[in-house]
């Protein structure tokens, strides 16, 4: 018989060797890529500072160094995150942090730019603080998820934690007026710390779906019952997952976050398809979704209005369709090369710093900028799937696919909403839209993806 060498367990490195920067494995690629968001921050801030000043820029009238504080702060935070990653996960993917850094520096620049015009001068500083916090949380996540089986083994715990958090918020929610932007904000203390737990629910759901599908993948892929021409999966194996999906959807629809419901359902579909490889599941689920969506649109007048706006926004440009029409005008005003950072009027659009950040960016950076922004998101998704392909086991692969799908779905849903291709929903554009909860949740996702791409433990 052939005698193939069986790999033996390599000698275990000492604890201390993990905490040192290995010169050969230094993340040079990441360092080089991080120079670009740094340059973007500096140039963007410089433009913001001089664009409305009347003095000609010469070597003597340069803006004071203090004014570059936000840029320096962000660059320092990215640099520190880079150094810590070298220690914590030296072999992990080197493009994820630069992409996230680039997108969040766009977010900080836009918040700095929009703040004064929206009458909130601290908007940029707050967004910068959220990014720095997010980078910290990202590194902590990379460190804390060293033992991935802990995520898998406690999948029900994670999910229930997520659902309970959102549930508490739902019960305590006091403003149920139809047009408040988000009704699921959990406020801890008197306005000290406001958080949107539904952002964390997404991550909890990915952990649960990935863990559950990993356990039951073979059962779901094999068909056991045949009803006429259809082959059904063993229902008892699909049951718990569908039940959890149902609970999550009911809660989310309860707080009327239809965008989030769309996101959760899309997540479920993509993971189910990836795990089972059976298009039949997707077709059946989409049919169920069509029925559910129809029900939602007939029950909630709020949802129905949003749907009608897709076709008739321009017939009500001054009331219901105001926001979306202004957003489209904003895009159009940008043209191909944009009005230039600081030279447009993006604040005319309601929610120009959150839901309509894409139209603000589109107005000032033009079609060229929006194309680059979409390109960045596509690369983020590509790198996420790259992590999935190279992951060690099925659970890691499903986690990576699910987390990537969260980015992809959010981007598509909000960009399509801004461009009047889908009903407008309040999903934040990852990393770019103003908002602490969403930023921190997205950085947690980047942290988990970094951990999944780190092969040597």
């Amino acid at each position, binding site marked *: 018989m052939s005698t193939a060498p069986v*790999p033996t367990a390599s000698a275990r490195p000492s604890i201390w060797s993990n905490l040192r920067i290995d010169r050969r494995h230094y993340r040079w690629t990441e360092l080089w890529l991080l120079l670009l968001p740094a340059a973007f921050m500096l140039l963007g801030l410089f433009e913001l500072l001089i664009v409305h000043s009347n003095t000609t820029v010469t070597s003597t009238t340069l803006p004071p160094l203090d004014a570059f504080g936000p840029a320096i702060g962000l660059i320092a935070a990215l640099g520190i995150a880079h150094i810590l990653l070298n220690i914590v996960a030296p072999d992990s993917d080197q493009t994820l942090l*630069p992409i996230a850094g*680039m997108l969040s520096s766009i977010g900080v620049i836009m918040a700095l730019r929009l703040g004064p015009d929206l009458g909130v001068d601290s908007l940029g500083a707050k967004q910068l603080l959220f990014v720095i916090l997010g980078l910290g949380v990202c590194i902590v996540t990379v460190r804390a998820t060293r033992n991935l089986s802990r995520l898998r083994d406690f999948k029900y715990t994670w999910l229930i934690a997520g659902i309970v958090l959102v549930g508490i918020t739902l019960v305590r929610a006091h403003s149920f007026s139809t047009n408040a932007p988000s009704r699921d904000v959990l406020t801890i203390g008197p306005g000290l710390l406001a958080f949107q737990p539904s952002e964390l629910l997404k991550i909890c759901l990915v952990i649960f779906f990935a863990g559950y599908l990993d356990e039951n993948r073979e059962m779901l*892929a094999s068909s056991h019952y045949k009803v006429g021409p259809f082959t059904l999966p063993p229902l008892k194996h699909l049951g718990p997952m569908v039940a959890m999906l149902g609970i999550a959807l009911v809660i989310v629809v309860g707080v009327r976050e239809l965008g989030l419901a769309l996101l959760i359902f899309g997540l479920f579909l993509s993971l189910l398809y990836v795990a089972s490889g059976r298009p039949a599941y997707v077709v059946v689920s989409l049919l169920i979704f069509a029925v559910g969506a129809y029900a939602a649109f007939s029950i909630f007048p709020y949802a129905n209005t949003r749907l009608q706006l897709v076709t008739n926004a321009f017939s009500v440009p001054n009331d219901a369709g105001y926001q979306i029409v202004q957003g489209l005008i904003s895009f159009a005003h940008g043209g191909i090369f944009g009005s230039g950072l600081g030279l447009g009027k993006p604040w005319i659009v309601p929610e120009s710093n959150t839901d309509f950040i894409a139209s603000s960016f589109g107005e000032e950076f033009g079609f060229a*900028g929006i194309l680059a922004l979409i390109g960045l998101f596509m690369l983020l998704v590509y790198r996420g799937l790259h992590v999935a392909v190279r992951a060690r086991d099925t659970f890691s692969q499903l986690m990576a696919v699910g987390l990537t799908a969260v980015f992809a779905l959010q981007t598509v849903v909000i960009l399509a909403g801004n461009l009047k291709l889908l009903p407008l929903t309040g999903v934040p554009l990852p990393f770019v839209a103003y908002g602490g909860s969403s930023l921190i949740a997205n950085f947690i996702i980047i942290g988990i993806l970094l951990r999944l791409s780190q092969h040597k433990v």
Partner: protein
Amino acid sequence: MESNAIVVLALRVGLVAILYLVILQIVAVSRRDMRLANAAPPATTAARPVVGYLVVVDSGSTHLVPGSRFPIEPITTIGRGPTNSIVVDTTFASTEHTRILFRDQSLWVEDMDSRNGTFVDQRQVTTRVAVTPGSILQVGDVRFKFAPLDGQKGGR
């Protein structure tokens, strides 16, 4: 404001250029990753060492394709159940029918108390028996031939 027009124009071009530069650089890194991944052996071979192959000689009443090749891992199970390494979809096979082990640099076949028995070279397997390349393994009405690893793709 007018006086700064050229500086502002340069900054506007620069900002968009940086965005595209990021994209170009990341695409370049991805291309390099792909080249490295093609050069290196797939990571799965390290996780699950393949010690040989089973070639389907006679597919019997199953959907297996004669001539198709299954990798033998240090522990390989054959049977009708979906959790086996090699699933033989026939009523002649038990849910857990046969197990192949790699021990002491040799492959061993053992029967898992199957109803119809496991046969190596037409002899029924009662205790654990060693097999060599070329041996014929019969599970239900399916027959496999043991093939060595040497010279096969995926081997090291």
